[in-house]
Every structure is written in C-alpha cells, then in structure tokens.
C-alpha cells in the first residue's frame, strides 16, 4: 500500500497546476467572498433564530392562593409574613419567565407563540416550530413553596425539541440562567429575612434576569472564519475528485493493466488513492486555514482545546475525503470515463452547494440545510461552526462518529463496486 500511496502522492504533488488551484485559489476566494459578502454571515443572531411555543399548563392564580394559605398557617413573625406576602405578588415564576422571553435581547432570537399543548406538539411535529417551553401543572405552587418556604422538590420548565441543535442549547441556557437568577433571589430573601442589615432589593437589582448572558459562550462567526472553513473544505473535497481522476489516465495509458498483472489487489490500489488523498487534503486544509489565520487573524485568542478539537475534525474530514476519492476511483473503473467524471463533478457541486461551501447555509431553506448535514463537507462545516461558537465537546463527538461512519461506508462501497477480477472489459 505504501508504494501506491507514494506513487499517487507524487503524481499529484508534481502537478503544479493542481497545487496552485488547491492552495492559491482558496485564499483568493476567502478574501473576495469575506470582503464582498460579510452581511451574509455576520448576523450574530441569524444562526440562532427559532420559533418557540409557550405552553402553560399551570393555574398561576390557584398556585398563588395555595401559597398564601400556607403562609398564613406558618408560625412566622407577622412582619416576615407581610414581607413574604408582598414578594409573592412579584414572584410568580411563570410570569417572570415569560417576561424574560419578551425582552428585546431574547426576542432577537426567539419568536414566541402561546399555544395549547396539543397544538404545540402538532406544530413541532410538522416542523412549524423548533421547540416548546412547557410550564407544568402546579409549577407556581411548587416553585414558590421551595423558594419562599424551602419545602417540597420545586419544579422545572420543560423543553421539547426534535434534535439537540445549537438552538436547543441556547434555550437550555435561557432556562438555566433564569433558574439560577431565581434561586439567587430566593437565597437572598431567605438570608435578608433574618438579617435587617441586608438590603434585599439592592442585591436583587444586581442580579437582573435576562441580558446578553442568556447565550453564554456563543461567539459570533465572522465572514472570514466562515469562508476560510467553507472554502478550504470544498477544495479538500475537490482534491478527492482530482486524485481519483488520475485513475482515468492510468486506465487510458494502461498503467493500471501493469498493476493488475503484478497481482495487486484492488483494495491496495484503492487504499493508495485513499491514503494519498487523506494526506493531501489534510495538508491543504491546514495550510489554507493557517494562512487565513496569520493573514486575517481568524482564530486569535483561542485555547489549545479549540485547536485540538479543530485538528480532530480536520483529520476525520480528510479521512472522509480519502474514502470519497476511493469511491470516485472505483466509479472510473465501473463506468466509462466521462460518466464517472460527470458523476463525481456533480456530486461535488451538489455537496458544495447544500453543504454551505459556496453560500452560507443560513440563506438556504431549512430542508436543504438538513440535507447539507448529510454531506461530509456540510457536516464538517456545521460542526466546525458550532465548535467556533460554543466549543461543546458533545457536538464534536457526534459529528466525528458520523464522519467516521461515512468514511467506512464509502470505502466499503468502493471495494464492492470495483470490478471484481480487475479485468478491463
């Protein structure tokens, strides 16, 4: 296999035209597209926008009434009872949560519609909404009972969504932030109730609900970052086609016949294509991204964890490109040259388009965005964009598993469709 790798690597490496295309062209495109179309990418909230249903199963008035009755039965000083009674009116948690959702900073991301449970579930199923918040039955009583009287188990706002996307993570963060603030306020009230020196109102004012903190850790993707990733990935995809197209010359010039006569197995031949494409596409990705970084400063102030995660994705993506190259090579030997080239070229154009390599995925319809994540370049780009924004390891591992599965299936398919006895019929 090493002989095949070396041969395929050198044949590509010494093709100066291909080297220039795979290194210079991406740099030019990254510069031009990033400067010409920054608005397509740098809308910080566009990528997070979502429609969310608000389903309230709770009877807030009944809950408040139950708490009032409980308070009156407590053996607390009358002064404390009065204070808690006043706070009760301002502390209805479902109402507070709704207020958070109606703040401007949240409205940029979340379009809220109030629905009953059945309708909300139906719309979620139809894809008309992305998620739903459910305030469960008895929520007000359970939360206030825990907050004010430190009794019971409390309650939780529920999120229902189809998949674990970045948007869902953001919704979880909104609830998390709301819950933390509510807990903090409850703690302050508990402490201040027994300590007249503490000014509970001032302390609570410092713990405002809402604001930018609702999307913690999500960074804006710049147009240079987007296009550096998108363009370098699509050019890596093109390397898989170029390496496989060398097989046309091997077929036409009968070098492949020599290989057959030497008794080489198809799997060795295809492994050569795959391994050389892995190295070439990885080198191309690394060079273009590092050049972009040093010229445009696209990944400044990033942690070692970020670079490690990105390196892992680039490696597995290169393996994918290698597997694709072996599949395209097998097509050359299964079909006639023009048909094989045509199929490979069309596959790259389609994958590039729906995978967000030519225009940002955000401008594509949702179904095309979903289809794009079934392409290796689309999935790779999507996971790298998420990684840029959140550095969440779970996002990486899922996508890397999918890319690994894609590589295994593609290489297996290549070996399967390669002419069995290697005869040139």
């Amino acid at each position, binding site marked *: 296999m090493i*002989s*095949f790798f*070396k*041969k395929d690597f*050198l*044949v590509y490496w*010494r*093709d100066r035209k291909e080297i220039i295309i795979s290194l210079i062209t991406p740099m030019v495109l990254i510069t031009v597209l990033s400067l010409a179309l920054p608005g397509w990418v740098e809308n910080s909230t566009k990528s997070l926008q979502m429609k969310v249903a608000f389903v309230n199963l709770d009877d807030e008035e009944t809950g408040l009434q139950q708490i009032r009755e409980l308070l009156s039965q407590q053996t607390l000083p009358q002064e404390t009872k009065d204070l808690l009674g006043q706070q009760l009116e301002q502390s209805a948690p479902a109402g507070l949560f709704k207020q958070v959702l109606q703040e401007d900073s949240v409205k940029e991301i979340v379009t809220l519609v109030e629905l009953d449970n059945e309708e909300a579930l139906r719309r979620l199923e139809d894809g008309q909404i992305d998620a739903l918040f459910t305030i469960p039955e008895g929520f007000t009583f359970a939360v206030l009972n825990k907050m004010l009287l430190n009794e019971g188990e409390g309650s939780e706002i529920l999120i229902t969504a189809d998949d674990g996307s970045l948007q869902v993570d953001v919704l979880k963060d909104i609830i998390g932030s709301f819950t933390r603030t509510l807990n903090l306020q409850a703690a302050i009230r508990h402490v201040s109730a027994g300590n007249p020196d503490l000014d509970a109102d001032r302390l609570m004012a410092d713990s405002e609900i809402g604001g930018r903190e609702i999307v913690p850790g999500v960074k804006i993707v710049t147009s240079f970052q987007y296009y550096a990733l998108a363009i370098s990935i699509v050019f890596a995809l093109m390397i898989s086609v170029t390496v496989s197209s060398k097989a046309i010359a091997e077929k*036409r*010039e*009968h*070098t492949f*016949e*020599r*290989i*057959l*006569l*030497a*008794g*080489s197995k198809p799997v060795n031949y295809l492994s050569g294509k795959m391994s050389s494409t892995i190295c070439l596409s990885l080198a191309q990705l690394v060079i273009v991204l590092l050049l972009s970084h040093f010229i445009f400063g696209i990944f400044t102030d990033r942690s070692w964890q970020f670079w490690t995660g990105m390196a892992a994705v680039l490696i597995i993506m290169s393996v994918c490109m290698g597997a694709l190259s072996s599949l395209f090579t097998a097509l050359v030997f299964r079909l006639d040259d023009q048909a094989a080239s045509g199929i490979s070229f069309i596959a790259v154009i389609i994958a590039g388009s729906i995978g967000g390599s030519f225009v940002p995925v955000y401008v594509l319809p949702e179904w095309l965005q979903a289809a794009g994540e079934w392409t290796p370049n689309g999935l790779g780009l999507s996971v790298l964009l998420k990684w840029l924004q959140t550095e969440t390891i779970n996002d990486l591992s899922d996508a890397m598993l999918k890319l690994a599965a894609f590589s295994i299936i593609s290489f297996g398919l290549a070996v399967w469709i390669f002419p069995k*006895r290697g*005869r*040139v*019929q």
Partner: protein
Amino acid sequence: MLEAVELRKVFKGKTAVDHVSLYLDEGESVGLLGPNGAGKSTTISLISSLLAPSSGDVRLNGNSVIAKPQQLREVIGVVPQEIALYEALSAYENLKFFGRIYRLQGKQLEMKIQELLEVIGLRDRQKELIKTYSGGMKRRVNIAAALMHDPKFVIMDEPTVGIDPQSRNHILETVRLLNREKGTTVLYTSHYMEEVEQLCSRVYIMDHGRIIAAGTTEELRRILSGEDTLLLQLDKPDEKLAQELRELEPVRQVEEMDSGLKLIVTKQSHLLSEVVQAAERHRVQIINIHVQTPTLEDVFLHLTGRTLRD
C-alpha cells in the same frame, strides 16, 4: 509452454478475435504480424489475462489459466503499445514502483533497477521525469518496467511505433538479448515486417481477427515460391495502367506505390514485353524494372490483398 486455444472475443456483437490458436515454446521468439485493426492487441490482452475471452482457453504448461490467472501473471511481462508509465515520476521511480508491486525489495530491487537501466541505456538519466524524455526513451523504459520481475514470457505490442532509429535499434538489441542470452520467450507484435524477420523464428499472420498463416519465416516465404515480385519504377502514376496489368493472366497482385507499381507474378512468366507495351499505350515511361524474391511483406500482400501499413 503458453498456448491460446480457439480464442474468441466478441465486443458488442462484433467479433474482434475469431478462433485464434497459437503457442509459444520456451525460449522461442515468435512474431505476430497484422495491419492495424487485425486484432493483435486484443489477442495479447486475452493471452495475458487482461481480458476474459468469449470462448476458448489460455493454457500455461497445459493448465487453463482463465479462471485463475495469477499463475500466469507471475511469469508474464507485457509491454503495451501505449507508454504505460507515470509521466510525473522519473524512470527510477517508475521502475521502483513497478518492482515494489512485484514484491521486490531492498538490494534486490535496487540491483534490478540499475541492471535494467543499464540494458536500456538510461542509467545516467534515471532521475529525470518521464515527461522530459523523447518518445524512444519512454519506449525503452516501457520495456524495462515489464521486465522487473524477470518474466519467462514477454509479450511486446508494437514496441517500436513512432520512434527514432537509435531507440529502435536499442529496443531490437534488447529483445535479442532477452531471447538469445537470457532465454526469455518473446511474442513480438509489429507491423514492421523487417523487425519480425530479424527477431523471430516463427511468425503468425493475422487479419480480420483470424490467424491466416503460420510457420517459420522460410515456410511462409515458400507460400510464394511459385511467384516473383516485379517492381516497376514509373515516371508518373497511372491508375488505368495498373488496371490493365491486373487483367493479365500471370499477374496475381498489383500494388500501387509512390514510385510506381509492385506486381506479384507467376514465376517464369514472360510478360515483360506485355508490360512494356501496356506502358507505351498509356504513355507512361518505365524508368526501371527490378525482379526480387518474395519477402514476408509480399506474403502478407498475397494473403490479405493489402499491405501491413494499410
């Protein structure tokens, strides 16, 4: 012994090779002659296991190798008509690659590469890329690549097409060396009759997918033992004269050439006066008349009605 038995290959309803049988005894040098499109290259692909025949068999030492060609592939070297090399690699790198896939390694591989580079006369230019070589140099490396594993049988498909005389002589010398000094069995395909006459002890003549004659060069020449070849050098071409000569009783074949006409005529026939009279009638001047014994080229013309380069 390597045998082809009643080989037949049909491509999309068209028969390219039609019941071809031939054999190669160890140490022999055998020629396969035929014009372009005669089916020589397809026959070679069938014999070397690169194509599966529609019917017929290929046998190595009596054993069929159609179903399991590996045994044959280990002992056969094929020099294709095309330059089957990687243009982006040097001669050394090409030979190293092909040697490695034949499982040669280390010193053995290095020695074999240098030995073959010496034989083909390119040792001092081994590091240059193939794309910088002349056509003749490429053809020499093309041969060396087929010899990396010391094959017992070498099949050469028109190895001297379109090259300079120096490279051509080098290739012919290499084939002689292989066959006479190393005892390699050679099947040499060409449409250069003189190459086959120089190199081969036996010849198969092929046309329209069939073997139409076979034997030693002497045996084949004897096909025309009752005939002579008459070369007429004329001052101008004349189609009507050629037509009139074709109708004369002793004339078997008339071929128009650049300088005049070639006639294959019955031996001892006294038709010179008739030829001269016919030329006068058509106002064509005969500059020279030459009578020669038949060559393989004449045999081919006699058998097929056309020349090898048609």
